[in-house]
């Protein structure tokens, strides 16, 4: 344990001297994929509740496919699958983009968390109290203002507890990034394990670090809930 900490603490936490690694990489993956997923989910959640099947069906299909398959399969399709296609290799921009493991990882992660987040937000929008919407309409709000001022603020707040769960699950999913050669926390741990053949210490250390990140996230979300959901207190 001491040997691993002495030799790998820097790589485990932020950098191995060449690139960002370890906890910093894990947090970066988590932040960027959740941010893209959030931006993706907001319009899709509204579209998911549309009355027109031409609008809601594609969104339903997207969430169905991405929630019905393992993230590992999605990552393998984006990372190794897409690159085996000729037109991807022959288009310079696509070739450049999909050759980088980290780009593929972020694409797969963002699409995956986007699908789950879409369903979370859509469910919460669906459960908006009809009285609030009626009142807003009676005020003469346009559809856009209705969403911006009434539905979205309340729906996003009510979605917070479930969304925090999704973020924690996403943190757990970032461990898959090492299959695409991204030097996240687990990758560094695996290197440490290969060097020492001491699985319990190496992976135990990683488990401890992940536990700390999880607890930090849970505490942060609990604070946010206390702030944003104060109106729901008994």
């Amino acid at each position: 344990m001491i040997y691993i900490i002495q030799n790998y603490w820097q790589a485990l936490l932020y950098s191995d001297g060449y690139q960002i690694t370890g906890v910093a990489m894990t947090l970066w993956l988590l932040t960027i994929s959740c941010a893209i997923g959030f931006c993706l989910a907001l319009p899709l959640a509204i579209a998911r509740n549309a009355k027109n099947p031409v609008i809601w069906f594609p969104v339903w299909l997207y969430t169905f496919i991405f929630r019905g398959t393992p993230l590992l399969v999605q990552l393998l399709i984006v990372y190794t699958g897409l690159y085996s296609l000729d037109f991807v290799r022959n288009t310079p921009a696509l070739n450049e983009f999909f050759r980088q493991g980290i780009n593929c990882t972020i694409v797969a992660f963002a699409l995956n968390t986007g699908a789950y987040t879409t369903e979370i937000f859509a469910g919460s929008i669906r459960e908006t109290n009809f009285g609030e919407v009626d009142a807003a309409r009676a005020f003469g709000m346009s559809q856009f203002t209705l969403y911006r001022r009434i539905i979205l603020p309340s729906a996003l707040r009510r979605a917070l507890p479930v969304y925090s769960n999704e973020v924690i699950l996403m943190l757990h999913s970032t461990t898959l990034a090492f299959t695409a050669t991204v030097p996240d926390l687990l990758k560094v741990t695996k290197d440490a394990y290969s060097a020492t053949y001491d699985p319990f210490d190496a992976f135990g250390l990683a488990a401890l670090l992940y536990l700390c990140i999880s607890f930090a996230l849970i505490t942060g979300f609990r604070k946010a809930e206390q702030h944003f959901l104060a109106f729901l207190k008994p």
Partner: protein
Amino acid sequence: MISLSGFGPQIAAGTLTTVELSILSLLVSFAIGLAGATAKLSKNPVLNTVATIYTTIIRGVPDLVLMLLIFYSLQIWLNDFTDWLGNVFPNVDIEQINLDPFTSGVITLGFIYGAYFTETFRGAFMAVPRGQLEAARAFGMKPGKVFRRILFPQMMRFALPGLGNNWQVILKATALVYLIGLTDVIKACQNAGEATFNTFFFFCIAGMVYLALTTISNGILMLLERKYAVGVRKAVL
């Protein structure tokens, strides 16, 4: 028509492995979940603390990290254990126990998702009205019978949505076993893809297999929910 280039049997065998692994892990985690929920609701402080630590740690650490931790450490612990047994009983011939990826996959997945089942069952146990249990006890039923006849059937109704969720998660988590070297549907598709230089197509096949499995299990869950909802009156809106 989609051509699998002769890799159909391998992919089918891989799918079977995935299904077997998921079902066995489900059974293990179901049992652990029942025991864990009982421990968490018991008045014994030791059991209570152990169960709480178990669920907190397991749910805070990524499943892949736990899987690698258990998969690589379990063999070492087993070797140490058999060595120790050999030293204690020098006359008995003790063989080394080798864990194959399938067994360690079942053990680790069961152990990990047992924590999630514990939480599901705990909520469901608490949802059964106390009066039901008191009535059963007043009838002179022994604790085992109370559990079998009264608590379990009613608890299942509350637990089913959560169980369904957990099952879907387990089904998708079996994909991780590919990373510790089991030939599941993903590995079979990867082999096929590398042999035919068409990885994209074969990974999509793997995705479709999982999609089919989740869709089928969704249907079964709906049937089960209807079965356990017998005798419950719902408000007509």
